[in-house]
Every structure is written in C-alpha cells, then in structure tokens.
C-alpha cells in the first residue's frame, strides 16, 4: 500500500514560524493561483498574501484542514474542509449524530483589518446541513457561525480557524441563551446545557491531527 505521509512540522515548531514553512507542490499551486489575482490597495494585498500563505501552511502542517478554494481578488474568501466532529440533529426529536468533517466558507473583508467585526460575520457552515450547535445559526440564514460578540480589528485568519475548531469540537461554546453574545440556536443551546456530559466532542488539539496520522502510519509499517 502506498501511504503518503505529510511533511510535518519540525519538533520545535510553533506558530510564529508558520510563514516560513516551505510549501509543497500542491499548496504552492493553491497559493500562487490565488496570489496571481490578488487585488485591492497595496497594504491590503500584502496583508492578504501573508494571511493566505499562513493559512495554506497551516493546512499543510496540520492536515486538519483541506483548502478547496482560495480567492484573494477582493476579500479573503476561502472554502475548506476541517476534520472535526460536527454535531447534527436532522430531526428535532433526535437522535444526535456527528459528522466527521465540516465544510466551511470563510470571508475576511478589508474592513476587518481596521474595525472590530461581529463574531457571526466571518464564517458559514456549508456542510453538514443540520448542525445542532448553540453557536451555529439556522440553515435559512446560511448556517452562520458565531465566534463571540465581537472579534478585534486585525484578527488573523489563522486565529479564526482555531476558534472554529474549538467551537465545532465544543471545547469552547456559549450556551446561555439569555446572553446575546453568541447563541444562534436557542434550542440547541438548551439541549447542550442538558447534555454537558457529551462535551467536548474531542480533546485533540488542532495541531495533533498530523502527528496522529504519522503515528498511525508508523504503526502500520511496523
């Protein structure tokens, strides 16, 4: 069997080195394709290129996310799949089940660099469709994901990715439906308040996925 093992981060890797990670052929192609059409003011273009490269490097080293589309023409517009359990409840009476991945659409506008943005303004869950999560809005409004009351001006896209991961995994979530700061689905908030024994959905850290893949591959070789 031909197993492809990712180019993982070095042992002393930390996120400050993300911009220096050499991209492999696939990820270089994604980056260069998006960069070729990058538009906007000079400062915004520089910012987008830095953000995009870090995002792609994060996808490469973590293998937690796979980028499907990256568009830098105006906003940073990225569609990706994140490997994380996503709670779903297709029928109001249950049972709950867990999708193994989330397909997410993220839009980072130029205004987010200089103005704090509402926490629900960046990301939408594209699939699965029947998410059962206190901080994910109804399908009718695009399954917007609320990351908190407000995100600070200049928040980095990689931070948004980490927030999304912790949110999906219910490592951080806001259940209080009387607090307007984050609850997009009151029924789900109520349900999860009554089922706190089920959370978090995973204790894995975002960056541990690639390491576990490598460990599995090593075991198989043995």
């Amino acid at each position, binding site marked *: 069997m031909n197993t492809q093992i990712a180019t993982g981060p070095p042992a002393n890797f930390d996120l400050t080195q993300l911009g220096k990670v050499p991209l492999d052929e696939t990820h270089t192609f994604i980056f260069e394709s998006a960069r070729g059409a990058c*538009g906007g003011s000079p400062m915004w273009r520089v910012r987008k290129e830095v953000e995009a490269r870090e995002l792609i490097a994060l996808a490469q080293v973590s293998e937690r996310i796979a980028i499907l589309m990256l568009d830098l023409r*105006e906003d940073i517009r990225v569609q990706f799949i994140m490997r994380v359990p996503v709670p779903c409840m297709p029928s109001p009476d249950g049972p709950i089940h867990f999708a193994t991945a989330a397909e997410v659409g993220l839009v980072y506008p130029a205004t987010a660099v200089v103005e*704090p943005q509402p*926490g629900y303004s960046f990301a939408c869950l594209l699939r699965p469709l029947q998410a059962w999560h206190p901080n994910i809005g109804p399908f009718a409004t695009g399954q917007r994901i609320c990351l908190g009351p407000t995100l600070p001006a*200049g928040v980095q896209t990689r931070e948004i990715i980490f927030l999304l991961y912790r949110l999906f995994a219910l490592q951080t979530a806001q259940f209080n439906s009387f607090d307007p700061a984050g609850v997009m689905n009151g029924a789900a908030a109520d349900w999860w308040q009554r089922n706190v024994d089920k959370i978090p959905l995973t204790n894995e850290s975002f960056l541990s996925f690639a390491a576990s893949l490598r460990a599995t591959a090593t075991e198989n070789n043995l």
Partner: protein
Amino acid sequence: MNNRNCLTEISLPPGASPAPLADFGERLPPFIGGPEDAAQRLASVRALVAGSGSVGLEVVETLARWKVAEIAVVDPKRFKGESVLTHGIPPEAVGESKAFYAGRLAKRISPLTRVSAAERGFETIGFAELARFSVVFLATDNLLAELKVSQACLSLGTPVVQGSVHGECLCGHVRFFGHGGPEAPCVACGYTRDEWAHLNRSTLYSCEGSGANTPAEGQPTRSLSSLCSLAAQLASLQFARDLLGLGAPVRDTVLEYCAYTHQTVITKLVRKPDCPCEHQVLRRTAAPRAIRNCSLRELQEAAGLGTAVTFEVDGGLWAEQGRCECGEWGALGRFVSESDTTYGPCQLCGKATKGHPFQCHRRVPAAVTEPFRDQQLGALGAVDICWAAVRSNQHGALFLDPTP
C-alpha cells in the same frame, strides 16, 4: 453607510418668522489678505456635525451664526443631568435628543439655513447623503466613530475638522484632515497600539443579526466647559481659515492649545506609510444616465480604470450563488439587498432561494459579473440606488445620481 434619508429636516416652530434678524455681512470684517467674497463662501458651506456634545453643539451654534447653507447634526445620545455642566444648554434640555436640540437651536438662529438632524450614529448616514456636504465636523467620543467618519470622508475627499479636549491638561486640539488624495493622512494614521486596543474594547456588537453596533458606555468628558467651547471655536476658526484662505494652510495639521501655558503648537499630520486603512479618494464621475439604467460595462468604461476593477452599489450585495432549504445551490448573478436576500424559486424543489452569505460580495470583482456585464443595474436587482463605485487597485470612481 447604507440607510438613506435618515436625516429629518427641521422647520421653524409655528408662527416663527423665517426672516433673519440681521444680515451676516453687517458684522463680517474685511479680513487681511482675505477674499472679497468671504460672506458668499461662508454662506455656501454645507456642514455635517458628527457628535453634538460639549464641543459639537458649540460648532453647530457657530455655523448657524455664519448663516451657512446647510447644517446636519447626528448624535445618538440624549442630554443627561451632568451635561449641563459642560454643554451650553439650559436645565430644561435634559432628556432631549442632542442632535435635535442642536438642530432646533441652529434653525432659530438662522431660519434660512437648511437644518436637519438624526438621533443616530454617523454610520447610518447614506454615502450619497454624505457626499453633498462640503465639510464634516467630528466631535464624537469613541474611536470607532472617528474611524468610520474618517474612512467615509476620505473616500469622498471631504475634509474633516475634529475638535477634542484633554481636560486634565487644559488642552484643546483641532485636527484638520484635508483628505486631498491617497497620500493625505487619515485619523488612523496617528493611532498608537493603545488606541487600536481601545477601539477594540469600546465596542459591543450584538449577535442578533442586524449588524448594528452599540458603543459601550464610555468615560464622560471631564473638562471645564470653557475648554470645550474653546476647542469648538478653534475648530470653527481653523475651518474658516481654510475656506477663506487666511494665513498659512491648515490642512493636515493638528493645532494644540494649552491653557496652563497659553502656548499653541501646530504640528503637521502625515500619512503613516503602513496605515491599514484604505486611502483611496473616489473621483466623482458623471454616469451616462440614471445609474439604475446603466450597465456595469458602461460604468466601467466611464470610470476609465481598465478591466481589473470591482463594483459596489448603494446598499446592495452581489449574490453570486443562492441556496435553497433543500441544500441545492443555484447561480443568481444579481444584486440583493442586505436585509432581504431572497430571490426566485429553487429549480429542484421550487422553494425560495436565498443569496448565501459566503457567495455574496459587497465589492464584487468584475470577473464575477462577466455574464451580466451588459445588463442594466435595475434589471440586475439594483433598483433603488443612488450611487455606484468602480475601483481599481490604485484609483476609484464614484457615480452619484443627481437627486439622492
């Protein structure tokens, strides 16, 4: 910056005479080195005052005494008991809207001036509405409002005169942003790391979906009322000097007066090379006809900025794709309003398709609109619009309908 006509025009109370008590020229001096048409220049001013507190209210009153053409006042707050300590108001005004109180005062002083007010924040003023003002006076109490005023006015090339005080130091400041081009400074060019942090802290956004923001209750202005009045009068004088060409240029300067020492310092404001804000002044360009009857291609050609451009229209989002409840995606290719993105039935199940947030663009790259470039904007859903903007990486053009 999307709701239009949010300003309410203020009329005289019933029975009040619309005739002015005196002609402004009776007290206007022949300024040394000044223009002969000083009165006419002042009379042609159309000013918007953002923030009608202890500084802004004084500015409004002064503009009314100059009998300018138009004054608009925006302020979301009402007077509190403590306001009497710093504002030029009588106790009876407590509880009244700051904006409407200032507007009514201005109208009484200058009945022929067109006066309007809004008990709202600056961001509710429509772009086309803002475009008719020749100057904006900024006297708000939070950095986010400052930033929004600066960004909107910079893109229109409208000067901003900001008056502020630092009560403990007995200092008054007037910053004059000329917004003359991409190399001119904006408010954010002078922000320190602390100010960016404060900007982030002082704002609360609700998750309830309206996108509205409510500034958190901030620190009240602690100052002697004299200092507030002084800052307002200095701001007015700086504007008059600019308008009438009196003395050295005041554009892109900050004037600081300290009452401890009676010293005045004038410092040049410069653009920060790595300012994160957009520094693009839109060139006002005539549309071939009413904007809703123009196609995107016509606007693009009239803008003369090449093909790698983006389009933005008044209050509209370009919905590239929509999604039905059944999960089916469908191509839309039209403008939808921010409040209602519903459009057409799903081809699969017949239910309503909605523009999806991930597939909606406020500024849409031209390439995305290619199949629809020759259709009129009205046919593409942009019916009730007053303006459209075409931008390249370096330049931009603004199309305004004559009567917003």
